[in-house]
């Protein structure tokens, strides 16, 4: 019985545009500021060699981050990606040690990760468990499987393809960086140009409206959880090549960085806004920050604290602007 608000044109149109723009570009400014800062305070920072170094350092995160971007765009989250990466690496090494012909250990590793991702998806989309909880449980399952397969030991028999992609070079460029770039590229093309990509954005922007428009939103959410798991699996498979071994906890610690990089870039935790270009900026921010703090003489015990503060600031920023989102 209250008075219905009547039609009103948008008095805040300019303000909205401004916010939208600043939201889009703030991460880029952050990145440029960091680069400038470290270039001034360190002689070794702004060199070609160091740039290649940074790319190499963020390559694994980039592979994982591609899948996380899909997941966040639908307003879900995957806390199991880093454990899935470890698990996939263990599976690849385990079957190589078991003399399964190549490339089947790698195929098995990706299939295993994909299957766990599918369970994440079904739990979230069909059973309605918050993805936060499902993937938290899945992180334990993936971690537990890694421990079970390795019996806690380190596996040194790796698929040759993992070794090539993880630590080999072609024409002077690390394969790892190329794999990361290719993953990002494919992710970008799918999100930006395919019907599925459109469904991902629309499902995240307003799930109810997407359902009303005939989009199979449950299918979309299941699919992004599988994609998140597959890219994590790929990161694990090439990651063991880079480390030279598969341990039962190899990539577990990458979770915060992987999700953090995607969010730092400006992809909304509430879905529908963001993408691979944003993720690339986020990855570079994180990479530059980590690398730069090594170059300048910062108290080594302060590094984690500073990274944490910057991540928190970016999250607050993200939430503040996401609050402007209607729907």
């Amino acid at each position, binding site marked *: *019985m*209250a*008075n*219905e*608000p*009547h*039609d*009103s*044109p*948008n008095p805040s*149109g300019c303000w*909205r545009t401004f916010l939208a723009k600043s939201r889009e570009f703030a991460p880029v400014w952050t990145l440029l500021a960091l680069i400038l800062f470290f270039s001034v305070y360190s002689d070794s920072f702004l060199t070609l060699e160091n740039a290649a170094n940074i790319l190499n350092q963020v390559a694994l995160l980039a592979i994982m981050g591609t899948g996380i971007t899909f997941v966040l765009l639908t307003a879900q989250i995957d806390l199991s990606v880093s454990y899935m990466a470890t698990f996939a690496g263990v599976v690849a090494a385990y079957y190589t040690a078991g003399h399964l012909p190549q490339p089947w250990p790698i195929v098995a590793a990706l299939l295993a990760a994909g299957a766990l991702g599918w369970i994440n998806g079904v739990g979230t989309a069909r059973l309605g468990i918050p993805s936060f909880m499902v993937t938290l449980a899945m992180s334990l399952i993936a971690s537990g499987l890694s421990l079970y397969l390795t019996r806690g030991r380190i596996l040194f028999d790796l698929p040759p393809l993992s070794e090539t992609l993880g630590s080999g070079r072609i024409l002077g460029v690390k394969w790892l960086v190329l794999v990361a770039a290719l993953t990002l590229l494919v992710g970008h093309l799918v999100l930006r*140009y*395919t*019907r*599925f990509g*459109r*469904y991902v*954005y*629309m499902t995240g*922007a*307003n799930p*109810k*409206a*997407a*359902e*009303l*428009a*005939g*989009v*199979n939103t449950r299918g979309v959410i299941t699919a992004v959880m599988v994609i998140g798991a597959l890219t994590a699996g790929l990161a694990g498979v090439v990651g063991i090549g880079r480390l030279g071994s598969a341990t039962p906890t190899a990539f577990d610690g990458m979770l915060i960085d992987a999700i953090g990089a995607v969010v730092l870039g400006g992809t909304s935790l509430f879905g*529908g*806004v963001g993408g691979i270009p944003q993720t690339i900026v986020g990855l570079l921010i994180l990479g530059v920050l980590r690398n730069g703090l090594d170059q300048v003489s910062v108290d080594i015990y302060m590094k984690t604290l500073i990274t944490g503060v910057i991540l928190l600031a970016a999250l607050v920023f993200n939430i503040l602007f996401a609050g402007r*989102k*209607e*729907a």
Partner: protein
Amino acid sequence: METTAPLLELHDVAKRFGGIQALSGIDFDVRRGEVHALVGENGAGKSTMMKILAGVLPDYQGTMVWQGRPLRLRNPRHALDLGIAMIHQELSVMPELTVAENIFLGRQPLRGGVVDWPRMFREAEAILAELGFGHVNVREPLERYPLGVHQLTEIARALTSGAELIIMDEPTSALSPMETRHLLELTRNLARAGKAVVYISHFLEEVTWVADRVTVLRDGRKIATLDARKTNKQELVRLMLGKEAAFFEESYMGGRTVEDRHAASEPVLVVEGLTRPRTFTDVRLELHPGEILGLYGLIGSGHFELGEAVYGLIKPTAGRILLEGRPVGIGPRRAIDRGVAYVPPSRRTGLFLEKPIYQNVTLPWLAQMSGLVPRVPREIAVTDGVIHRVGVRPPDPLKEVVFLSGGNQQKVAIARWLVEPPKVFVVSEPTRGMDVGAKEEVMKILRELSQAGVGVLLISSEPETVLAASERILVMAKGRIVREFVGETVTKERLLHAAAGELAEAR
């Protein structure tokens, strides 16, 4: 009864919200032992008045007198302490807790700092027995009982907290006919026991049965206070609407005869015996190609849910929905592919405000329009066509929907369904909150669609909306279709009367 002094009086009470005068010059009183009903259209000021009585709105003009002494309520707590309790339309109970806990919510009897369960159960049983519901087990969780008992729990809570004046806001809107009867009898008993009751309801039949006096509000003013035994539904509806209104709201019926068309065509949509507990019961309707069928009901009548069922969003427990003779099936995708279009009652539910118009328009059609890779130029061209047809301003497919006015947003929601003309178009509340010009434009689009052979199911709780375009009107009340208007002149008065008055038939 006439001799007792009023328990509560309002003298010349007024309330403004910004530029809107919600209430003015209200004189009102309620006595012990009396049920005083308050009726009026949506927006007449009932809610505002009730909120003043319950202490929710402390800054009003005028005087309130409680038991002969002037006073100003500071907040709902203050009102409650004096003995004024409000039973809300949306129940404020905790279904997981026991009946007894719900009755004593927030003031459980204590012993040595812990809840005195035996005493609480004993007292809860006593009060329910007093109310004639001795069969309710107060140790059971409330959720085991139907909504009628939830309502009852709220009343018991009010009584045990020592309420003298009980305000009931649409207490029966969610109740079954049986539960409604019980509640009405209970309300009479409260008055008999010396309590004062202010009873607010859309259902005039109930009002004339339960009340001693009825006060009619219209446009924030008191129109009359009547003796409930000497008035009737017709008089109340007339007073609620005002004469001019009844005269003004003529329906759009002239010209075409419904019977002709029905003889000439098979119905495109048939709903048979559709039932879903607490939503709708045994609904039967036929929609013919080229027809605009209005479905009118007060809020909570189940008419919006019927629209959702046709689109496959909610599943009925019994009955069938046939499109061209075959069941529609479950889920929007199937409905869309079969030629059913749907616009939900809230624009925010159906649109992607932050996305450009073209993405809003083409989403249901992406698979048909192109393969795996949508062709954006084609999407924009298609969107351009349909938004020009419905007159979206500005007609820029790249503009985000959030920048459009409400009326134009609604046009986008409709334009989406013109890409592939539907066979059945279910539109819920298509003109809510729009100005007159935008309303007329939306109605024009619906009429054009019907002339092109689309069957339009126009669902609304605004009489004007239904009257403006429908050739045939069904009225729903409490989940049932209670009245059909065909080939006759319908006025807003008759419509409201049917929705509010003919519950006797529904029972």
